[in-house]
């Protein structure tokens, strides 16, 4: 105690996040809750961001697109993690909110002269609008979560996906209907057209879209992390752990459950609009129960109630088709197709992670980190 006081006066401690050589020594809540609360974390995050800005110059365009889509899905996975991981409200309805965002983006930012409804608005309008409209849909669903608990809620949100699927199929002037589909919004920001085939100031299309997705991922990851470490995030945790107890200590259940759904839907809406703008053409069948399960898989495989886990999970799921193609090379011909192998991997991975490593990829990372932290005295 005395040494701590001598070497780390509180005023100084607030400035740096720890005493040199003792990164885990915290002398205030402020330090404990900091975004990067150890020097190692700060350095590695900066290193990782720099590394990811170098990645596009090392990989080919087709692999870059896989990563781009993975990073965009990561935004949606962070959203699902907010409602399911942090606030504990099981939602199988994520596909519906992604669909709402995708169509809002496509209608507002779509080609005004195209076959479907489109207003040709710029990206800085359609992207936030997609998030806001999806969030409003979340606000409408939220009150259901207040009345229902656990598995009842899971089934009701599953019903939402089916009703949404029906609406998307039938609203032909907006969605093009099944089998036809429509084009997503135009990806043009600050006068740069990210979907043009021409090189953009020396960058190929894949590289430009990668940077776009990376910037959005960083923005939303920091946003998600800040929600999680603020009072709102702590209220979510209290609701998840025991809602009656949370209500007793003064957490307004209605407010925070509705808020969780609205925030998660905002992330989903942004993901929907961006993802399908990058993909190009999409049809209403895309927003089925399978999509919800994919996002749930990202959260579970990545790590429940962690932001970095959501990102790892999303990238992992995005790379899964590539992985199964690779594995299929070793499977004898005719035994199983690549597509079926991929689906089986999904199922087995979800089960395997839940049974053997419930904390997901994040848990594996924590274990590796702790091993080296104690090295050479790790046990």
């Amino acid at each position, binding site marked *: 105690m005395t040494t701590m006081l001598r070497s780390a006066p509180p005023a100084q401690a607030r400035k740096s996040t720890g005493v040199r050589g003792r990164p885990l020594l915290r002398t205030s809540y402020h330090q404990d809750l900091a975004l990067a609360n150890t020097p190692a974390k700060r350095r590695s995050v900066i290193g990782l961001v720099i590394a990811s800005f170098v990645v596009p110059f090392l990989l080919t365009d087709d692999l870059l697109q896989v990563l781009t889509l993975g990073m965009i899905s990561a935004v949606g996975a962070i959203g699902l993690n907010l409602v399911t991981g942090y606030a504990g409200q099981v939602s199988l309805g994520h596909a519906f909110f992604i669909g709402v965002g995708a169509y809002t983006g496509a209608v507002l930012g779509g080609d005004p002269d195209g076959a479907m409804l489109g207003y040709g608005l710029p990206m800085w309008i359609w992207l936030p609008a997609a998030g806001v409209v999806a969030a409003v849909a979340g606000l409408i669903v939220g009150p259901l979560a207040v009345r229902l608990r656990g598995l*009842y809620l899971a089934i009701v949100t599953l019903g939402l996906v089916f009703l949404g699927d*029906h609406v998307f199929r039938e609203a032909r002037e907006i969605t093009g209907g099944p089998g036809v589909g429509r084009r997503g919004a135009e990806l043009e920001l600050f006068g740069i057209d990210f979907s043009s085939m021409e090189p953009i100031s020396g960058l190929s299309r894949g590289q430009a879209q990668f940077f776009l997705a990376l910037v959005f991922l960083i923005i939303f990851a920091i946003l998600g992390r800040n929600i999680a470490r603020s009072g709102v995030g702590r209220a979510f945790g209290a609701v998840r752990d025991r809602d009656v107890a949370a209500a007793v200590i003064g957490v307004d259940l209605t407010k925070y459950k509705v808020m969780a759904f609205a925030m998660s839907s905002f992330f989903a809406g942004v993901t929907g609009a961006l993802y399908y703008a990058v993909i190009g053409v999409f049809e209403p069948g895309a927003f089925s129960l399978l999509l919800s399960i994919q996002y749930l898989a990202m959260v579970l495989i990545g790590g429940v109630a962690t932001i970095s886990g959501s990102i790892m999970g999303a990238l992992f799921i995005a790379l899964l088709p590539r992985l199964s193609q690779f594995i299929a090379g070793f499977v004898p011909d005719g035994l199983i197709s690549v597509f079926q192998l991929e689906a089986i991997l999904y*199922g*087995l991975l979800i*089960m395997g992670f839940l*049974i053997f490593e419930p904390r997901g990829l994040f848990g594996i990372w924590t274990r590796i980190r702790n091993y080296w932290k104690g090295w050479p005295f790790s046990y």
Partner: protein
Amino acid sequence: MTTFLQSVLNGFAQGSIYALLALGYVMIYKATHVISFAQPALMVCGGLFAYHATSVFELPFWPALIVAIIAGALLGMLVERLALRPMVGKPVFTLAIITIGVDIVLRIFANRYMGPDPRSVPYPGGSNRLEFWGLSISHQRLGLIVVTAVTVAALAMFFRYAKTGLAMRATALNQETALAQGIRVGTMFALAWAIAGGLAAIAGTFVAATGAGMEQNTWIIALKALPAIIIGGLDSIPGAVIGGLAVGLVESITAVYQPDVAPWLGNNFALVAPYALMFLVLLVKPYGLFGTKEVERV
């Protein structure tokens, strides 16, 4: 009036399928407090067992149904033993997600077996129809309604009079107390899954016996039993039957009247009408019509 009665009759037949599946969900929920999302796969596999028995072993319909029930029950027990028993005591949400994984894996195997062609089970009597009071019903649907009624009655008797049935009810009430009374709780879990697998196999066999047969996307209909159990209440056996029939009725009546009465709802609204009904019921009664209200305490 005849149109209405006919649609009610068809609704009862379709509702019987949902009731059988819903009973399976409720069995598993009561025993383990988990909603099994693996039920669609069990239904598809059950139908394919019956198909295999009739087309490869060349058994008649009724023996094939028995074979399918036994195989379905074994499959249910296998799933419980391999995927769920190691997870006893974990949060129910985790278990529910595991059943989604089971469902995906099982359905891939079923799809590999099925291929692109629909697989149908021949029903004795073929396309004969029974006509009365200006209504008509196919023998296959009549058989389905009768089989469902017999199954539900048998299950009710089992839970009311059999010693094992009593043990299962005790397990559903409180696992630890049941254990203290000398009941093998693990066996009861396996039995619940076996019953659910058998019920799903009956439903699957009759689905495969309709004109369309069992196809790669037939599994979707098993999910319509989910609104049924929510409407009836997750833990109520009569609720599951009533909910299943209600879902079948709503679907069939919507299919007849919605295109004329409310065309703005779009084509094929009947397919999602059960979910709309579920929302309506939940707005009024959050625990379904017959579900037990959860008591909140700190």
